[in-house]
């Protein structure tokens, strides 16, 4: 399921393996493996950092422009600076609740190189003066949990975590917390609620910006696993080398989880901003081509909540701001490829169903709207669609995310891209994310919806299953055929 793991040797030429250098090392997850293999020597960066001032550490991260790898792509060094001065205690929360369909990069980082993450946590904790680090790992990743727990024990035993780390005055604890299985807890304020022992539901920002009012209402920096995993390499090799890969605005590498209809799905560490989707799909070291004998129909560039891209967008580089301008997002780096065998309506349903199931239930539009979207799509697929359902879907979607929704350009129909992000009537973007597959699919493949819809308005609004009405039922199936 996790596909191929790219060993360091299969990196593109001249590109260092910043975070994935131990993915292929059998004991890379142990302290011994971490200090003896990979693209740098483990815990060396920590030793260096402890000789610097916290402010110096922060400015290195800022100068390197380490972008957040969780989805929003916000520079980590800048985020660290948002802690109100003089307010203590502060916390670091590591967001390891990765659970969007198609996204599985953090899982590998936690399973295969837990010490790299721990060292990143320690560097960040030192930089902001955190009293404690909370490592929140997704509940469905028991293997990651075991590896992290074992690595933490080793690191504690080696004096790398806890009181007076490496004989210095620096002390910090790292607490491993196992999630209970909710996608929404990947949203940072919901994650904080969950850590506090509450039901995972997002808080409104403002006033609850975690950097100011986070965990236990104290300043809290929430960082993604991959973001922190970048730090040991950065401090071993320096800002200049870090910035030598990728682009000016998006330096370094990032992990891409490639799945779907390619010959070689898997996790790949690619240079940020310079690799195009075409490279990713076709290069031998990455996807190795669309499934043989098939052609690309559409792809999701950044996880289930990203609006879809189509063959026209294949030459765009994987760069956050650029993709945002083209109507989608790079998000958490999950690219899902769909070839021409994919039913657009069914694909939309699968994605919408995920959001409907994972809605936390807090905001009315998301709680009720995502389920409504799912029911309409299911009904269309079941052959009980009505012509008015397409507009209904779009309007329900509009009530969750009002106004023009981000979508890719469609040059064939002279339609321009609408840039990211969408607007929302909800607290967090989960509900509005459910709109992405709907607007993407309807704008491009409206004919597929229409083909599944009976070409007459059913006057009946009976809530009884239509299958009880043989005449209508056969009509419906006759018009649509098997779906």
């Amino acid at each position: 399921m996790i596909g191929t793991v790219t060993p360091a040797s299969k990196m593109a030429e001249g590109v260092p393996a910043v975070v994935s250098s131990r993915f292929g090392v059998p004991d890379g997850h142990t302290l011994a493996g971490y200090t003896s293999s990979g693209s740098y020597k483990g815990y060396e960066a920590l030793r260096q950092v402890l000789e610097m001032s916290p402010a110096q550490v922060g400015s290195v991260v800022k100068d390197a422009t380490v972008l957040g790898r969780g989805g929003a792509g916000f520079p980590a060094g800048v985020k660290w600076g948002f802690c109100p001065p003089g307010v203590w205690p502060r916390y670091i929360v590591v967001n390891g609740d990765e659970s969007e369909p198609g996204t599985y990069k953090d899982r590998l980082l936690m399973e295969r190189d837990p010490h790299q993450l721990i060292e990143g946590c320690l560097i960040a904790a030192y930089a902001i003066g955190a009293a404690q680090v909370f490592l929140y790992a997704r509940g469905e990743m028991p293997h990651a949990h075991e590896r992290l727990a074992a690595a933490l024990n080793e690191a504690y035993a080696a004096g790398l975590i806890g009181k007076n780390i490496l004989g210095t005055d620096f002390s910090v604890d790292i607490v491993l917390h196992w999630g209970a299985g909710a996608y929404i807890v990947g949203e940072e304020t919901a994650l904080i609620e969950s850590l506090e022992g509450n039901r995972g539901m997002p808080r409104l920002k403002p006033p609850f910006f975690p950097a100011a009012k986070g965990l236990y209402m104290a300043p809290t920096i929430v960082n993604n696993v991959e973001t922190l995993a970048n730090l040991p390499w950065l401090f071993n090799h320096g800002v200049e080398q870090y910035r030598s890969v990728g682009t000016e605005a998006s330096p370094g590498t990032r992990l891409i989880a490639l799945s779907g209809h390619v010959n070689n799905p898997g996790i790949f560490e690619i240079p940020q901003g310079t690799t195009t989707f075409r490279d990713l799909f076709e290069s031998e070291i990455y996807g190795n081509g669309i499934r043989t004998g098939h052609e690309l129909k559409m792809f999701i560039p950044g996880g289930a909540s990203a609006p879809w891209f189509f063959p026209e967008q294949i030459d765009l580089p994987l760069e956050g701001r650029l993709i945002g301008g083209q109507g989608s997002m790079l998000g958490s780096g999950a690219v899902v490829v769909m070839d021409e065998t994919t039913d657009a309506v069914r694909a939309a349903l699968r994605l919408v169903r995920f959001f409907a199931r994972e809605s936390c239930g807090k905001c009315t539009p998301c709680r009720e709207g995502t389920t409504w979207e799912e029911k309409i799509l299911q009904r269309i697929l079941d052959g009980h669609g009505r012509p008015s359902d397409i507009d209904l879907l779009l309007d329900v979607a509009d009530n969750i995310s009002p106004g023009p929704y981000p979508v890719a350009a469609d040059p064939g129909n002279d339609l321009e891209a609408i840039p990211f992000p969408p607007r929302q009537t909800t607290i967090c973007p989960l509900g509005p994310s459910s709109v992405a597959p709907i607007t993407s699919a309807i704008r491009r493949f409206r004919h597929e919806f229409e083909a599944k819809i009976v070409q007459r308005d059913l006057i009946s609004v009976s809530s009884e299953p239509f299958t009880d009405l043989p005449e209508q039922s056969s009509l419906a199936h006759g018009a649509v055929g098997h779906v």
Partner: protein
Amino acid sequence: MSEKPRKIEITDPVTITVDGREVTAQNGELLIDACERNDAYIPRFCYHPRMNPVGMCRMCLVEVDTGRGPALQPSCMIPVAAEMVVDTKNEQVSKAQDGILEFLLANHPLDCPVCDKGGECPLQDQTMAYGPGESRWVEEKRHYEKPIAISETVYLDRERCILCDRCTRFAKDVAGDPLIHFIDRGSNTEIATFPDEPFSSYFSGNTVQICPVGALTAKPYRFRARPWDLEEVESTCTGCSVGCRITVQSSRNQVLRFQGVDSDPVNWSWLCDKGRFGFEAINSEERLAEPLMLSSDGTLSPARWAEALNAAADAIRAADPTSVAVIGGAQLTNESQYAWAKFAKGIIGTDHVDAQLGDGLAAEVVLGLPGATIDQVCAPGSTVLYMGPDPKEELSVLYIRLKHAAQEDGVQIIELSPAASGLSPYASASLHYRPADLPKLVEALLAGELPDQGLPGIDAAEFTKASQALLAAEQNLHVVIGRANLAESADCVAVAASAVHQALPGATFLSGLRRANLRGALEAGLTPGMLPGRSSLAEHGQAWKELWGSVPSTAGMDTTQILQAAAASKIDVLILLGADPLADFADRSLARRGVAGARTVISLDRFLTASTRQADIVFPIAGFAECEGTHTNLEGRVTRLNQKVTPPGTARTDWMIAAELAALLGKDLGVERDAQELWDEFTAHSAVHAGVSSAALDHPDAADGLLLDLGPRPFVTPVAPHVAPQSSYSLRLIVNRTLYDQGTEIHHCDSSSGLAPAASVRLSPADATPLGAEDGTQVTVSSPQGSITAALVIDSGVPKGSAVLRHNLEGADPGLLIDSADVVCEIRVEVS
């Protein structure tokens, strides 16, 4: 919705633009309130002005521009800032609001015609005002079993629920009983209790009132009326002395519901369930509807009013004034209290009048100490020295206010109590003293150090924390006093309060005495040695003599002394004003001997009680919602009580009976038409009542009532009671109350009568272990007075060396152990 934005004083005005108009708002207040106050009401479901906002329903989305372009924002979460531009009605806002309503209605059943909420339903009302009119939802709606009981009184219909988080937030944040919560996710989210743990909160009824749909309904009101058939008047709950404002709603001359009114200085719209559902007692079929007299066969039989009044007047006329005694009166209106004070002291000429049943505090302490209001006690910056009863059990809405003060406003509570209470979790320091040690503890706290030998059960670190907080408080110290232990002399708390008053003269005091209008009774002079308006008989007798014609020459006896005199056959006429000493007086033996020893017992009551059954003459009286008058709460706040229904049968208001008896004795009580004449006479002659005249109470600004003058009066410092050295009886008894007990009122409420807990003996683990007893073991508690048996509950909230019994529960009567002559009650506990 019925909730109104909280009244605020604008201290930091900013100008914002609402729908094109420039308006003034308080900087930082919530936009939803600022708009409503400026005539731009924003629809909402989850927002409640007395709870922290959650931004859950999204109905209050408006377009807000803070300089970065307009965006839809939930106005319940947005603090007002200068130059904010708000549009509450434009096309985008309307579209969003229409969308939210359509979403909410998608799964909401259209059973309005059979729904109790129909007609007063925020969802119904806002659908009419804002909704799109038609739904496009053609799918199957959600289905759940409907309704399910989540407690003995509250039912939940999950199909109607719109998941606004009001009930759950209330339970967790306001009541502190987080017994209901969301389970499951997305559109399958539902409200649920924890397995085998019902929503048995003392405050559960509030969730029914604040539910914006008909999802939560309460057993006492289900299917009883439609909102449009209800008539209502505002009044004050007389379930306890807090004085929560309510509306009394009735249909066809029957009271059907009480709803909390948001009185800013008192109850903030919250009620306890005992108060909320207490209306059931009004409608009880066991209400007395005609006078009763002891007939020749020894039973109480119906009598005509003239017969009963003549018999009572004859008995009073025949008795020496000093052999007439009056017990009770705390449930009466201020007017009836004044009438009875005047009748007893001015006309009969006896000062043996006591509204308290040995479970209160001396009137001169309550009325003499400088007074504090609930708002002052709970204001940010306040430090509270709490020496009262468990507020959650006895003064439930005061508990809500104190909890809020501690949790939200940083108020420091120093709790001194014999055992852990519902307030303990919110106290910044909690000291549990051995019964009778309170004066010593307070003395030590004021001195800043524990005596060398320490005090039993007092932790040194906690003591230091408490002492430092107490001594740092200065002008912001507020002291709540009351009876945390009925088995301990009232002098203990009086001495402690007096010590605080002398050491820290800036401290003010709130008396947490439970009986509804006890404060009013004391103010009216229904207490020995005092006359109305905090006048002492000795010093101000002359002024009232001029008005009344006569006043007693010497101070009379209190309830304990009256019962002792009666037991010695020295009381000819004992008048019980709604009092039931046989159930309520702590020393059961003395109560029995006293009531039996009085030659003639005259009772004014709404029900046949243990004491009423011993009476010779019983007058049925009009109770709450059946008469007009005023009420004084524990702060000294006077509010109007209004009549909504007629009393049963020929029952009359208490003051009428006093007036009739006075006439039969050839005297004039000075009242011809209505109770207001009594109030006018009272307020005209009492300096402390100068500001609460009828005219002042009728002023529109007096909706929350008016405070009496709370300034201090000189009083004699009580003498510390002498406690005999510990006897061979090893434990000291604590007797306290639970909200639900076998009290007359609650006994006649169908929904609440079964909620009283079983009697138990509560011991600390340290005292239970040596007995070899565990939870549920039957143990016998003995004192020199007697012994009782009940099941043991091991309770870590009880300190070592003490045992807790509850007052007035079925199965074990601590009154059998208590000798009212003792300062403390020493007991022995053994496995039965």
